[in-house]
């Protein structure tokens, strides 16, 4: 009986595993196919890999511009979120707990949870008024609306888990509160900082909703460029899957590196 359950469990899991990784495999393999091999039914499982899609993207599509835009937008919002978020997170975590701090924490989490479309509508009107629609700073501001509260909330959770005694000792030795934060607190939450930075970067790097409204032509980011392949020129599937691979690779790598903190971060410190 036990053996039967065990076998059923493994069969179930292997099916789940295949179902989970198949689309990943299919995207990667499609990015290495030439057009002729892509649409054959039944599908071609063995084929001669080709880098032609990558070459086309680099030469004709001008992919570097989109990568640069994505890096600038995601990188800047990550730095802003990390600097102000770690400071505020520390401030919320330390000292006396009061009603104001609780209200701020609540405000942070609801802001982070707000639907994308709920933020786009008013920001679009305001950006229109200031004439920044289509410019990268608009996008950076939009990303900061969710990354900064995320960083504040999560850094607070990381600081809450630290023992306060070391900082107290530093302050007894004549360290100011801010210096204690900078010299003692921050180095101790380094894994937390890395995790928050990675996730902030990922949320911005992967965003499409904001970018499709707030960027145009020369400021488009990688996800917008990827989606554009499917409307303007019909669907150039080989390049779309290749762009998808390029979009996924960096966040997959850094994401797996921080996987120990992934669940903590994605559940806002609840698990």
């Amino acid at each position, binding site marked *: 009986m036990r053996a039967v359950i065990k076998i059923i469990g493994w069969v179930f899991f292997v099916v789940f595993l295949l179902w989970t990784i198949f689309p990943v495999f299919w995207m990667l393999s499609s990015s290495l196919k030439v057009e002729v091999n892509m649409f054959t*039914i039944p599908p071609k499982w063995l084929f001669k890999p080709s880098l032609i899609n990558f070459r086309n993207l680099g030469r004709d599509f001008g992919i570097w511009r989109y990568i640069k835009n994505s890096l600038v937008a995601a990188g800047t919002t990550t730095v802003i979120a990390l600097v102000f978020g770690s400071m505020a997170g520390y401030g919320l975590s330390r000292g006396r707990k009061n009603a104001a701090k609780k209200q701020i924490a609540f405000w942070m989490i609801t802001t982070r949870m707000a639907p994308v*479309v709920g933020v786009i*509508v008013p920001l679009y009107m*305001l950006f229109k008024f200031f004439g920044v629609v289509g410019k990268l700073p608009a996008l950076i501001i939009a990303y900061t609306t969710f990354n900064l509260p995320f960083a504040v909330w999560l850094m607070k959770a990381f600081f809450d888990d630290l023992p306060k005694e070391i900082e107290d000792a530093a302050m007894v030795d004549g360290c100011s*509160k801010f210096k204690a934060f900078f010299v003692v607190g921050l180095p101790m939450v380094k894994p937390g900082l890395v995790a928050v930075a990675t996730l902030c970067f990922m949320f911005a790097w*992967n965003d499409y909703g904001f970018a499709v409204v707030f960027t145009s032509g020369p400021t488009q980011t990688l*996800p917008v460029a990827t989606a554009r392949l499917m409307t303007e020129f019909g669907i150039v599937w080989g390049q779309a899957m290749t762009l998808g691979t390029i979009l996924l690779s960096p966040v997959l790598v850094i994401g797996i590196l921080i996987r120990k903190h992934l669940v903590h971060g994605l559940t806002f410190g609840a*698990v």
Partner: protein
Amino acid sequence: MNKTAVLGKKVRLTTEFYMILPAVTILAVITLFPFFYTIWLSLMSYPMIQLSEVKFIGLGNWLKMLRDPNVRTYWWVTIKFACSALAIEVVLGLTVALFLSKLKLFQDLLTTIIIAPVFFAPVLVGLIGKFIYDDSFGIYTYFFHSLGLFTDKSLFGTTATALPILVGLDVWEWTPLIVLIFLAGLKSLPSTPFEAASLDGANEWNMLWRLTFPMLKPVLFVALIIRTMDILRYFDVFLVTTRGGPANSTKIMSIGIYDAAFQAYRMGYAATLTLTMLFLTIILGNLFVKFFLTEKGGA
């Protein structure tokens, strides 16, 4: 308490105040101000393409929303989508987590492999969905056809299949996160109750239902809140696959608002619909903070 201690406390408070201040100021400008602007906007008739027609209409948008049958459709689709995705993700995620937690070898490796979908940009999930469910060359369409299923139908183009396919894509991307959440929950369970139960001769099935599942309730709560919030939050997949079609069968609230704002350019009405979604978010946020207060002892 001596004087320096009192003084020390006072200095400490102000330092914290100044540390919180920059983040709060930035957020007040970029989120609080837009929020109040949304409320004001919801009281206006604001056709973006005819700015001369902009006027204050009080609760006009709100009354219109209550009578709008489309709004009911959007909510109904949202609820259908959310409930089916959440139910499948929780059952599937819990089962996989239970399986993985029993593994001694390869647990870490297999967990790492299955979390790959979590890192996909939602827009990419939509794109891949379009690719694998394409009517002529999609590989999943081919699998279905080989099994004799849906041979005469377009999967994204039929009202009966479009929403289930989108649910499937959501389940594909986010079940791994649920697995991670439950796995973390299973690992943090205390061992004493299980030892006591097995001394009393309870079998594994009983322990699962009487001990494991009840003790996982807080973790389940977190998983549900986080996923509900994400489902309300993102609409990228819908935007690049069906855009709400065919015949509004996949028009979730977010797409409805997006269309009101950027197709019809009725910003006032879009703002009104937005506020109803934000209201839901505030309720979810409240529940989440309550969880922190009860489970973790202090938000």
